């Protein structure tokens, strides 16, 4: 039986048709994967399922009944739950408060024979309920933790519990693994399977085709708002899916040429870098490494082991308390971002919408951010409008950025295209060193291929590249050497060529290889 069925579902935005007559069926107790390029309209479709957006036209049926949702509440009532691409959690609240939000248990007083609820929340009882739920699904959460301070994987578990607690039958996951570490992904996928076993219907949106193959029963491919294919997973392959999505042959793994770099000069050197908070907490502990010209150095590690801090220090967003950084013997320790850029460091920040881009500004303006004071864009304090527009035209063409028009805002772009703005901006500054943090998070396969190619091109031009990514396969396919971080330290080094993911995995878990 199909729990969800759509007939000609359409969503139009003022300047685009995000979903164009979508007709699909989602069978009960199966995992249906939806794939498609960035901006294809996947999230929009899910938002309509979940009552966040209203369709412009078309029919949505849940368990055979035609429904019209006005709000997520209606969707929840119909047994739908959604874990969003960007979590909808309240950071200052505890795990159990977040899960119970909207369905609080209140203290009751007995009046006569009746239990009359008071406005007060019965925190004790709530906590017990949640602890029970956590046990039932065998998760590793503590109900009392503040959500703002738990790991991303844990946050996702909270989102899932939120749905499970509400007893939903249909769970929608929008790119759930984009932010998870490899260690977290495995159990998550296992969880999906468990839930399916328990009779839940699951829709999974992801850019990682391996996951599609691993867990889904059916795959639906969307391109530019239209369904272009729908098939049982068993009958397809990642390569075929990628080709369908992108409309051309896609290399799922770039071909890196490994050379002997030992004779090349050292470009970048980090010596004994450490960061100790005033509370005494050590965030970075004596980190040292070198990158030679033309070398790609990868840094792997379970999230929260100091990679973010390392990148923050190297990109000038945080001060280090010890150690030094230098580029071609020029000391860059504790330089501000602007001075770093001047010295020839290009930076791709971890979170594109926080540090990398300003959504409320135009694409053209974002394309010059950080370089907006350079003479080619600015004279006497005023921006050169012509040069800025010309830059936009060039970059858009060179990096194939899909924008609506010359005055498009970043907020109107899909994730992949937004990331390409950063790539274009940083690559065209002709840097001596590139520091790239999570360069392809949330980006579709076609764009990943493109970004990876560009990174390798750069190292081919004898530039030094530092890549920090929680995506192990990314680090492995790009790096000449891989350093693994654990608890703020470099715990081990692995050559990039023929790297063994098992060995790296052990290091990431803090188990140093003997010898």
């Amino acid at each position: 039986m199909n729990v969800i069925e759509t007939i000609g579902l359409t969503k139009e935005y003022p300047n685009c048709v995000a979903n164009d007559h979508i007709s699909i069926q989602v069978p009960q107790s199966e995992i249906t994967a939806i794939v498609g390029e960035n901006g294809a309209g996947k999230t929009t479709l899910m938002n309509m399922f979940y009552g966040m957006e209203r369709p412009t036209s078309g029919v949505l049926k849940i368990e055979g009944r035609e429904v019209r949702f006005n709000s997520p509440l209606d969707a929840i009532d119909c047994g739908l739950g959604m874990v969003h691409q960007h979590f909808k959690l309240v950071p200052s609240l505890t795990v159990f408060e977040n899960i119970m939000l909207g369905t609080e248990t209140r203290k009751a007083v007995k009046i006569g024979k009746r239990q009359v609820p008071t406005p007060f929340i019965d925190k004790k009882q709530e906590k017990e309920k949640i602890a029970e739920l956590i046990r039932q699904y065998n998760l590793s959460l503590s109900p009392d933790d503040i959500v703002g301070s738990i790991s991303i994987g844990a946050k996702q578990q909270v989102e899932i519990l939120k749905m499970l607690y509400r007893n939903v039958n249909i769970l929608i996951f929008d790119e759930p693994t984009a932010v998870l570490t490899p260690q977290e992904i495995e159990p998550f996928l296992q969880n999906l399977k468990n839930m399916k076993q328990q009779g839940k219907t699951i829709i999974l949106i992801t850019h990682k085709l391996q996951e599609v193959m691993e867990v889904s029963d059916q795959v639906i491919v969307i391109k530019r708002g239209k369904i272009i294919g729908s098939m049982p997973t068993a009958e397809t392959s990642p390569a075929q899916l990628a080709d369908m999505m992108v409309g051309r042959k896609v290399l799922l793994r770039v071909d890196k040429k490994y050379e002997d770099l030992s004779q090349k000069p050292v470009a970048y050197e980090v010596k004994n870098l450490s960061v100790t908070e005033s509370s005494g907490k050590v965030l970075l502990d004596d980190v040292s490494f070198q990158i030679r010209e033309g070398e790609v150095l990868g840094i792997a590690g379970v999230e929260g082991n100091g990679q973010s801090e390392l990148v923050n220090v190297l990109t000038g967003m945080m001060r280090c308390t010890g150690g030094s950084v230098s580029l071609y013997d020029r000391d860059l320790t504790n330089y501000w971002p602007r001075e770093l850029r001047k010295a020839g460091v290009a930076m791709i920040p971890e979170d594109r919408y926080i540090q990398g881009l300003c959504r409320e500004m135009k694409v053209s303006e974002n394309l010059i951010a950080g370089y907006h004071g350079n003479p080619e864009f600015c004279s006497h304090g005023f921006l050169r409008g012509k040069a800025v527009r010309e830059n936009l035209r060039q970059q858009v063409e060179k990096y194939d950025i899909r924008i609506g028009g010359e005055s498009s805002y970043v907020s109107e772009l899909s994730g992949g295209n937004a990331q390409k703005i950063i790539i274009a901006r940083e690559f065209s500054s002709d840097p001596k060193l590139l520091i790239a943090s999570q360069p392809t998070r949330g980006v579709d396969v076609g764009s990943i291929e493109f970004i990876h190619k560009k990174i390798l091109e750069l190292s081919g031009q004898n530039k030094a590249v530092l890549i920090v990514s929680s995506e192990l396969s990314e680090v492995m396919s790009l790096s000449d050497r891989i350093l693994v971080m654990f608890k703020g330290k470099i715990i081990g080094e692995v050559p990039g060529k023929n790297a063994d993911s098992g060995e790296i995995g052990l290091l990431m878990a803090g188990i140093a290889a003997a010898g």
Partner: protein
Amino acid sequence: MEKKKLKHYLRETLSTLLPILAALVVGGFVILAIGENPITTYGVLLQKSLFTYSGLMKTLHYAGPLILTGLAIAVAFKANIYNMAVEGAAVLGGFSAAVVGFSLHGVSAPVHIFLCLLTGILAGVLYTAIPAFLKAYLNVDEMVVTLMLNYALVIVLQYFTEGGALKDPKAGYVSTYSVSPDAMFQKLFNSDLTPFFFISIIIFIFFWFVFKKSKLGYEITAMGNNPAFSEASGMNVRRKIILIMLISGALSGLAGGGFMLSEKYRYTLDFSGDPGLGWEGMLIALVGRKDPVGILIASIFFAALNTGSDYVDMFTNVPKNIVGVLQGIIILFVSFRAADAKFGISAKLRDKFGKSPKDAPAEGKAA
């Protein structure tokens, strides 16, 4: 394309005018309720402030300092800095301009005026430097600090005006000496207008370029929308905060100084008026959606309300307080206009009444 643009402007104009009309209708009932004729009242209010020579000139004259305080607020608000020190800086600017205006002798008129304004600007800058540094280096909430400092400043200035060397002993009220005639802006064209209005306009044009075309304008937008982004793209946000606040202070100081030399001529306790140059500037900046052209129009609108209200009292039997009530109502309604641009309420309403949303394109990012 042409047609679309035309439609766009039509809609813009309509959504500006509608709330004002609505406010006038509500206000009309209030006027009716006290037994007066709303048509006559509005006639006087508009006609006298905009459609007579002297009224229009007076309106423009009042708009001068308001344009500056409007810009002063907008510069800061755009960068997400809630600088309420504009009010205090304008008052202090006026006060210091007055002090130079009456204590300096033996310089030529233009030099005297220049020095007065310069002092006003410096005073505004110095005053705003306190919250600026507190915010930039200690992360102290600027809104609270500036609110408090404004109260304190008024008391301190009162203290200086009530005694000592600055007080005009001949005046029966609390007042400094009046500025010497050569420090006064001369009235032009047989009206209330003075060169100060043109100074304001020049500065307005300059700031139009700053907002729309300059590196600083770029940085202000970035800071206002995404501080982390602006840090990461190499702006020295701390320094920028200080810079922006000081610009805001300078504009306010100039507004106060100019107001002193073109209208008040001596510092009295009611110098800034009601609700005050800075507060009015805030309303103007918000109503004008922090956009320079919007600010210009809003300044003239608020100045016209001020001028008109005096005329209403003089030429009708509607008491001045009712004009205050009207102003309150209009402000309530224009707040909703500002929203309309942002959230496209007119569009939404149309949506509701069944037209295809294709006809109602999003209202853009202008807000």
